[in-house]
C-alpha cells in the first residue's frame, strides 16, 4: 500500500463518506437529533430518571416490535399483536392478585408460584401465534386478513375471560408485589446504580432475537422467505414450517410483553394493548423494516421504538397539546421513513 492509496482513502473520509454515514444511519441521527432538540428546550427531559423511564416504557414496546418485526420480514403482518398483549396482561394479572385483595377475579385462588401465571399468559400468546401461523401457512389466508380476524377474536376472548362471575367485568387490580416488582423493580444497589428489571429483560430478549435472525438457519430462512418465497421454497426452505415458527415466536413475545405491561402498571383491563400493533409496525417501518419483506434489523426496530417513545414522552414534557401530539407523531413517522428510504433510492 503506497502513499497515494493512503491519500485517496483519506479523501474518502471527507465529505463524501460523511454523507454515506449519514444516509446509512439516518434513523439513528433522527433519534439523536430529537433527543438533543427536546433536551435543549426542556433540560429535565435528559434527567436520568426520565431517560430510564423512557427505556422502561420502550422495553415492553420493543418486545412487541421485535415480535412483529420478524413477521414483517417474511412479508407478513400481525394486527393481533396489541390485543394478544391485552389478553396476556389480563391472564397474568388475574392470577397474581393478592390473597387479601377483596375483589379478586378468582376468589378461591391460592397463592400460585410466581412462574405459573407468567407461563399461563405467555402460553396464551403462543396459542394465538400458532393459530395465526397455521392459518397463514396452510389455509393461505393473507396475513393481514388472518390477523385482522384473530385481533377481533382475541379481544372477544379477553373480554369473555374478564367478564366472569361472581364479579363480572372490572379492572383487575391488587397485584402481588413480587409480580409487579418484575415491571417496577431494579437490579443493583439502590440509590447508587441500578438497572430496571424491564430493561434487563428487554436486553436479553433483544440478544436472543438478534442471534436468531443473524446466526441461525431460521433467521436466514426468514429473510429468504421475505426476499422471495418461491425462490426460498425451490432452494429447499420449508416455507410453511418457518412461517408458523415466526408467528409462534411473535405470539410468545406478545405474551411476554403483556405480562410485563401488567406488572409495570400494576393491573390490567380487557382494553390493554389496544392499537399497540400499529405503534409496533410503525416503529419497525421507521426503523427500516421493509413492509415488502426481506429487509430489517433488530437495531432498526429498537431505534424505531425509541423514536416513538422519545416523542411520546418528549411532547408531554414540552407541554404540547394532546391534539398536536398526534399530528407531530404522524408527521415524524412519515418524515423519518422519507429520510431513511433515501439509502435504498441511492442504490438504484
Amino acid at each position, binding site marked *: 500500500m503506497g502513499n497515494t492509496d493512503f491519500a485517496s482513502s483519506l479523501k474518502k473520509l471527507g465529505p463524501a463518506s460523511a454523507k454515506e454515514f449519514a444516509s446509512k444511519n439516518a434513523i439513528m441521527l433522527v433519534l439523536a437529533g430529537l433527543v438533543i432538540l427536546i433536551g435543549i428546550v426542556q433540560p429535565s427531559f435528559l434527567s436520568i430518571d426520565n431517560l430510564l423511564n423512557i427505556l422502561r416504557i420502550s422495553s415492553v414496546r420493543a418486545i412487541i416490535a421485535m415480535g412483529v418485526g420478524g413477521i414483517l420480514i417474511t412479508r407478513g403482518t400481525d394486527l393481533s399483536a396489541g390485543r394478544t398483549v391485552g389478553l396476556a396482561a389480563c391472564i397474568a394479572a388475574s392470577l397474581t392478585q393478592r390473597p387479601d385483595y377483596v375483589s379478586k377475579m378468582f376468589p378461591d385462588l391460592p397463592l400460585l408460584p410466581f412462574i405459573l401465571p407468567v407461563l399461563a399468559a405467555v402460553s396464551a400468546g403462543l396459542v394465538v401465534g400458532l393459530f395465526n401461523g397455521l392459518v397463514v401457512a396452510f389455509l393461505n389466508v393473507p396475513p393481514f386478513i388472518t390477523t385482522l380476524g384473530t385481533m377481533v377474536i382475541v379481544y372477544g376472548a379477553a*373480554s369473555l375471560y374478564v367478564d366472569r362471575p361472581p364479579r363480572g367485568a372490572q379492572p383487575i387490580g391488587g397485584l402481588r408485589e413480587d409480580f409487579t416488582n418484575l415491571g417496577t423493580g431494579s437490579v443493583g444497589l439502590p440509590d447508587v446504580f441500578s438497572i430496571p428489571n424491564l430493561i434487563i429483560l428487554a436486553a436479553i430478549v433483544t440478544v436472543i432475537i438478534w442471534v436468531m435472525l443473524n446466526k441461525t438457519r431460521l433467521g436466514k430462512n426468514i429473510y429468504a422467505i421475505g426476499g422471495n418465497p418461491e425462490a426460498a421454497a425451490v432452494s429447499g426452505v420449508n416455507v410453511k414450517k418457518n412461517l408458523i415458527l415466526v408467528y409462534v415466536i411473535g405470539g410468545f413475545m406478545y405474551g411476554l410483553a403483556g405480562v410485563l405491561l401488567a406488572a*409495570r*402498571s*400494576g393491573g390490567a383491563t380487557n382494553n390493554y394493548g389496544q392499537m399497540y400493533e400499529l405503534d409496533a409496525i410503525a416503529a419497525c417501518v421507521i426503523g427500516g423494516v421493509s413492509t415488502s419483506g426481506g429487509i430489517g434489523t433488530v437495531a432498526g426496530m429498537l431505534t424505531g421504538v425509541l423514536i416513538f417513545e422519545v416523542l411520546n414522552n418528549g411532547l*408531554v414534557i414540552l*407541554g404540547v397539546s394532546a391534539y398536536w401530539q398526534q399530528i407531530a407523531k404522524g408527521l415524524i413517522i412519515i418524515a423519518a421513513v422519507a429520510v431513511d428510504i433515501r439509502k435504498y433510492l441511492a442504490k438504484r
Partner: protein
Amino acid sequence: MKRLIGVLVIFAVLFASFGCQAAAKKPKIGVAIYKFDDTFMSYVRNKIETSAKDKIEISVQDSQYDQPKQNDQVDQFLTQGYTSLAINLVDPSAVSVVIGKVQAKKTPIVFFNREPVAVDMAKYDKAYYVGAKAQESGTMEGELVVDYWKNTPAADKNKDGIIQYVMLIGDPSNTDAQYRTEYSIKAIEAAGLKVEKLAEDTAMWDRVKGQEKTAAWLAKFGDKIEVILANNDDMALGAIEACKAAGLTALGGKKPMVIVGVDATPPALDALEQGFLVGTVLNDAERQGLATFDLAFALATGAKEVKSDVAPLANAAGKADPAGKYIWVPYVKVTKENYKSFKK
C-alpha cells in the same frame, strides 16, 4: 317445480312464525351498550342483566363505539318486536335518528348514562333518561381535594398557599371528561383556594397512558406537583404507579402525593386502603343499572305508571323535572372513612 314449492313452504313457515311473534308480543327489552370494554358500563350492564334474570327476556348488544352500528341494532330490535329499548348512546348528539326510529314504532325507549340532546328528548313522549349529573362528579372530586388540603398542611409542599396541580383528562371530546376537568377546579376555587395548573393532558381514560404521562410530568416538575387530578380511577391508578416509581410514598409518609379519581373501582378502593389515593367519586353504576332496568321493565310490560325503586322519576338532585322523563342518580364521595361500605 318441486323446488319452487319447497321455497314457498319455507316462506310460509317463516311468515307464520313472524305472525305468531307479532301477535304474542311477548315483553322483552333490547339493550345496546356504547362499548363493552368500558369498565363503568360493564357494571351497569351486569346490574341490568342480573336484574332481568328470571323476570324478562333481554338482549344486550355491544355497539363497539360505532353509532351507525347502534342504529342498526335499534332497527333489529324494532323488527324483532322488542317492547322496550334501553340504549346507551354512542354519540349523544346524534340521538334524533334513534328517536325517529322508535317513535315510528311507538316503542318506549330509555336512554342511560350518556345524556341525549334535550331538544330531541322533548320530541317523543316515551323517551326517558337515566343518568348522573356529570358536573356533580367534578364538583365532588374538587371537594375531596379541598377537604384533604385544609386538613393537611403538609400537602402544600412549597408553602405558597397555592395548589400546584396536573390534570389527567379522559377523552377530551367526552362531556364527562370536560365537566370533571372544569368543575373539579371550580369547586376548589369556590372553597377559596388558589390553584396553579402545571400541566394537563389526555390519557384517554387509560391506566398505562396515565402512568406514562405522569412519569413525564414528574421528570419535568418533580416536587412542584402537589395534586394530581384524574378524570377517572384507571388514570389515577396509573399516576400512583408512576409516583411509586419516582420514590413517592403513601399519604402520611415522607413524600406523599395528593391523588384523586372518579369511579370508585375495586382497584381504586384498594389504593385508598393502602393510602395512595386521597379519594374517589362513585358514579353509582348499580343504581344506574337498576333504575334503567326498572324503567325499561315497567315500559316493556306496559305498566301504567312508570317509576323506579332507586330514585323517583320526578327528580333526585332536588330539581323539578315537570316532564317526568329524567332520573338523576346521585354520585357519592368515597374516602378513607367510608370506602369499606363500597367494597364488594
